[in-house]
């Protein structure tokens, strides 16, 4: 399986994603934002970081960058696009995913382990995954998911809510919501479920010496589903 990780100036989780993808068997390539095209891929990843410094609005400049046209074409033709953290912010800026990621409710950067519940397994990302709840890691200042009522209705109607913040037993309560996101949303799909944007970082949780290895379930499952 071939994957491509797009590097924007200011991306900083690109190497971590590269390490994770390769560990689980992807043939990964790094693609610079100014490259004319993306090599043939089964999966495109927009990694975390601070693309273009995030000085305007998180992900907004990356959302207008040269390479992003190819990403949008790839996504519109049904290709798998995964955006983590800043990558999720970029996906909402391009319009590939609805809504926006606002500053965290408590106006602080938050770096900690969280639990998320998998809400929909009818897709390439989570089909056959052995777990209902994953312990992942968040590290962001703008992860407070927000959208209009219409968009929320559409997300619900089309089963687009991918993962939600919860406790270790899967209870989705406001107290387990780290950033104020609507309905505890940690990640959403596009309508066709080929695009996934989420704030938590599975790539930081891929061996037992890190504070969790639940990222393994995510990547192992993803590559199986793509075979």
């Amino acid at each position, binding site marked *: 399986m071939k994957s491509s990780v797009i590097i924007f100036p200011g991306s900083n989780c690109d190497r971590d994603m590269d390490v994770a993808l390769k560990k689980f068997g992807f043939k990964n390539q790094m693609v610079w934002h100014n490259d004319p095209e993306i090599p043939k891929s089964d999966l495109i990843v927009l990694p975390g970081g601070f693309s273009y410094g995030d000085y305007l609005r998180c992900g907004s400049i990356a959302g207008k960058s040269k390479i992003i046209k190819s990403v949008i074409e790839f996504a519109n033709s049904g290709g798998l696009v995964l955006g983590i953290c800043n990558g999720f912010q970029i996906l909402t800026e391009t319009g590939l995913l609805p809504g926006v990621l606002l500053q965290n409710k408590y106006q602080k950067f938050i770096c900690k382990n969280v639990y998320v519940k998998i809400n929909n397994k009818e897709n390439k990302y989570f089909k056959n995954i052995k777990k209902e709840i994953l312990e992942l890691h968040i590290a962001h200042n703008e992860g407070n998911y927000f959208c209009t009522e219409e968009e929320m209705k559409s997300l619900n109607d089309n089963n687009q809510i991918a993962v939600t913040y919860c406790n270790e037993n899967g209870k989705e309560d406001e107290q387990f919501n780290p950033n104020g996101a609507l309905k505890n949303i940690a990640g959403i799909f596009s309508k066709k479920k080929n695009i996934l944007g989420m704030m938590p970082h599975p790539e*930081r949780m891929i061996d037992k010496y890190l504070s969790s290895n639940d990222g393994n379930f995510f990547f192992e499952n993803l590559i199986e589903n793509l075979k």
Partner: protein
Amino acid sequence: MDVNEKIAIDHGLKKEEFVKICDLLKRTPNLTELGIFSAMWNEHCSYKSSRIHLKKLNTKGKKVIQGPGENAGVIDIEDDDAIVFKIESHNHPSFIEPYQGAATGVGGIMRDVFTMGARPIANLNSIHFGSPQHPKTKNLLRGVVKGIGGYGNCMGIPTVGGQTSFDESYNGNILVNAMTLGLVNKNKIFYSKAAGINKPVIYVGSKTGRDGIHGASMASAIFDEKIDEKKPTVQVGDPFTEKLLLEACLELMAGKSIISIQDMGAAGLTSSSIEMASKGNLGIELNLNKVPCREEKMSPYEIMLSESQERMLIVLENGKEADAKKIFDKWNLDFAVIGKTTNTKKIELFFDKKKVAEIPINILAENAPVYNRKWKKTKLPQKIKFKKDDFKKLKITEVLKKILSLPNISSKEWIWEQYDHTVMGDTIQKPGSDAGVVRVHGTSKAVATSVDSSAIYCNAHPLTGGKQVVCESWRNLISCGSKPIAITNCLNFGNPEKEKNMGEFVECVEGINEASKFLDYPVVSGNVSFYNETKDKGIKPTPTIGGVGLIKDYKKMVTMNLKNSGNLILVIGKTEGHIDQSIFAINILSEKKGPPPVVNLFNEKNNGETILKLINEDLVNSAHDVSLGGIITAVSKMAIKGKKGFELNKPKVLINKFDYYFGEDQGRYIIEIEAKNLSNVQKILKDNLVHYDEIGLVAEKDVIIDKEPIIHIDDLIKSNKYWLEDYMDK
């Protein structure tokens, strides 16, 4: 403008220093030249008050590749890998403008590390604030934490450890010390020494603006009521540009075109160009019209003294300019050939086709003033005779809960949750532990690192305090199973022109040196911050020690959280019950006098090395060093982290239980072991002549101390967890 004595004094120079400048030049300097002298001769850049004392430090060792004198120190961690590291202060700017002050402190220290060719892999910080009740403290703390996070998070370097304290002596002068570790192949280290004549001098990075002019002079002055007027001397950080600069520099360094490289830190273009030329025994010629400027009509004076951030100066091999420019174009950074190396041994500056400055380099560097300032010894205070009857009314568990919730003991999660501590995917021990631990990417090795300082002990007796803080650093590294290799120090003191403050400095350095020699734990880099004084009130002497240790097989790393109920708890090292200057004496008995605990370097070394033997034999389930708050606080912190209970019984030693549990004797650790390993552990301890006490067991959730009423571990967790959060957010 003609330069005179008054202008020189306004630049922070002393009258006799101005006379010396005129003598050395054999003429009066022009304004640009005076600016250059003031930048090079201030305390921050010249170390004029500290140099003769720093020379005595133990800086050599088998693992030392580069000691003090370069952008950062370098140590060997085997297999061609080396760690580049340094700590630096950004105290003065952070007090004036906490966000930018702290942010640029972090940016500056990272630049020092990647200038040498290393990719930063971990950041730490040691931050000290005034009393929580002081009206400025909350905003300063909030700004500093946001600034540190804002810069480090954007760079994508994990902040893996730190230290925070509150003390009223920092009311008018907070301390912000930032440390960075970088990883480099030991055969590919870059230095600042220029070599060769007619080599192009290249400017890369951000454009030069008017920010930070005289920053280094400001950092060499005491504060008064006009402090807010100094805001324009604080630099403004741009972590995004620094991230690009990091990647671009590392890309250029992969080739062979760089002769020398130096970041523009304090005193900007002035000190970077002079340092490169001075080390190479060369001259340097710069055309200031070529310097990329952010603002219009900047004068040579402003260009030379700007402390705009995210800039580097490079001496390149001839003919490599085009290739190098390509890399910086890719990263959208400025690249300009601004001059060349010469054989004149002078710095010569040109602007609008006129020569605007000409100064022999040796006058600026080697001939800079050096002072052997007067200093006063601090006598060891008399031991306090506590009325032991006072203790009788106290309950251990009640005192313990109170201690766990004190500002200086309570959890600092509110702070470190705002720092990205997991990016790069190799953080295997997070903040809130004895040390932060990061794996050396792609190997079985890991590096442990911590920052420590103990101003209370240093204030009571600087010589002992200096020794103690090195030992504490050593213990923190041992506790996670690493072998301590070397240290960096950030020496934060008051006004060196006062004999008392100068004495504190001299004796702390002596203490650091003594411990560093005995433990074979050399100092490889560091920085001095004097004049931490406002309206005649100085800070407590606060040397901060940043330590680095190596774990050869990270699978053997030890953590501090208690693991399994039924396991045994041992105190390693002898407990004499030293209460003076302890958290217990100061906060519970309101007694601030007395000597700090004695440091016995032999025991320190022997106990530490024996703990490492136990860890290497896989006999230790958890370990933690005993520091502030004594044995009981140490065990409680292990229990809180492991969400376990414990049962302790004071051994039959003669001292009373408060002295035993709360005393802050040095050289001690708590370890958790399995009952089946007891005899093995005992044998190793006895063979190595290490004193130990068996004091109890790990329990499921109950905390039982000497048959006092049982409390639940959640009570201790609550006591410890919320002070800072409540203070900041409620």
